[in-house]
């Protein structure tokens, strides 16, 4: 890959980094990353990966922009209300960095489309708001041998882990989705907008570390923080032999769509 003069200037702060350099920037520029959900987490992830020059960014989301999204979903602007989120996100990415090839999927990730979509990417970022899709991303990535970053935020809290084949997966820690309605979503319980940025940028950094091979990923760890105290905590975890999807005798070998809690079904304005 030969960078143009403009690209060398654009990515100079990466190229200057001893651990990244021209080689690392080449890896970033060849990277293909799928972002599931163009919302609170997907927005900062998409912005930072686009700015970093990730070669291909896929974005999947079936929603349109709502006025209540703008408090934290910073890739969408006031003029974008009612526009499909994937189109709004694509416009901003292209304005920020025309080098990026943006592929949009204006639909929900499902057991049917997940294997084919995920197959085209090197890394998957979970930026979704609901447990059925979080578990679907986990299972699809484990079965396909794809690395991914899990992210969750609620109220003043955030948590994230990175999975690469062979390390603990989301199901090793959380065996199955909680009963519908046991855990509120952001739309029910609220969330401090900046939390989405805090967690999303951690996820974006994990992607760039994975693509360049720099540092230690958040594998076999769960990072959680609370913004009220600004305490960050990393809990050690390990792959569970009994994990239903990545354990020694997996019982989940095919993808399932868990039923959504009734109150999570969105009403269009």
């Amino acid at each position, binding site marked *: 890959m030969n960078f143009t003069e403009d690209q060398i200037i654009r990515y100079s702060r990466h190229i200057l980094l001893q651990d990244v350099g021209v080689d690392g920037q080449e890896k970033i520029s060849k990277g293909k990353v799928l972002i599931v959900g163009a919302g609170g987490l997907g927005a900062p992830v998409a912005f930072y990966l686009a700015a970093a020059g990730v070669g291909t960014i896929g974005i999947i989301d079936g929603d349109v922009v*709502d006025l209540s999204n703008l408090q934290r979903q910073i890739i969408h602007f006031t003029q974008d209300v009612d526009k499909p989120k994937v189109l709004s996100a694509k416009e901003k990415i292209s304005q920020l960095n025309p080098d990026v090839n943006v592929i949009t999927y204006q639909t929900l990730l499902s057991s049917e489309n997940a294997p084919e979509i995920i197959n085209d990417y090197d890394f998957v970022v979970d930026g979704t708001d609901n447990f059925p899709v*979080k578990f679907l991303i986990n299972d699809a990535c484990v079965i396909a041998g794809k690395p991914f970053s899990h992210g*969750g935020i609620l109220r003043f809290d955030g*948590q994230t882990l990175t999975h690469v084949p062979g390390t603990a997966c989301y199901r090793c820690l959380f065996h199955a989705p909680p009963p519908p309605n046991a855990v509120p979503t952001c739309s029910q319980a609220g969330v401090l907008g900046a939390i989405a940025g805090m967690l999303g940028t951690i996820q974006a950094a994990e992607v760039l570390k994975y693509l360049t091979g720099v540092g230690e990923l958040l594998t076999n760890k769960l990072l959680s923080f609370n913004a009220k105290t600004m305490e960050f905590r990393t*809990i*050690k975890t390990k792959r569970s032999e*009994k994990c239903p999807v990545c354990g020694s005798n997996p019982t989940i070998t095919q993808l399932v769509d868990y039923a959504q809690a009734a109150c999570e079904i969105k009403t269009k304005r």
Partner: protein
Amino acid sequence: MAKITVNGKEQELENLTTLAQLITSNNITQPDMVSVQLNEEFVNRENYETIALKDGDEVDFLYFMGGGQSA
């Protein structure tokens, strides 16, 4: 007196109890919302009543967290 580490902080227990009792004494009113690790190993929900805690055990309550995309 036994010492148990819960979410990184030491707790002194007068009597060693089961995991289920620890969940109650930590005011976790909705156990469905947490996943429990004992000494870095995931614990199945069905075993909360039967697992007896030992001095020095490390227990982590991991909370389900959705969020990110929602309208």
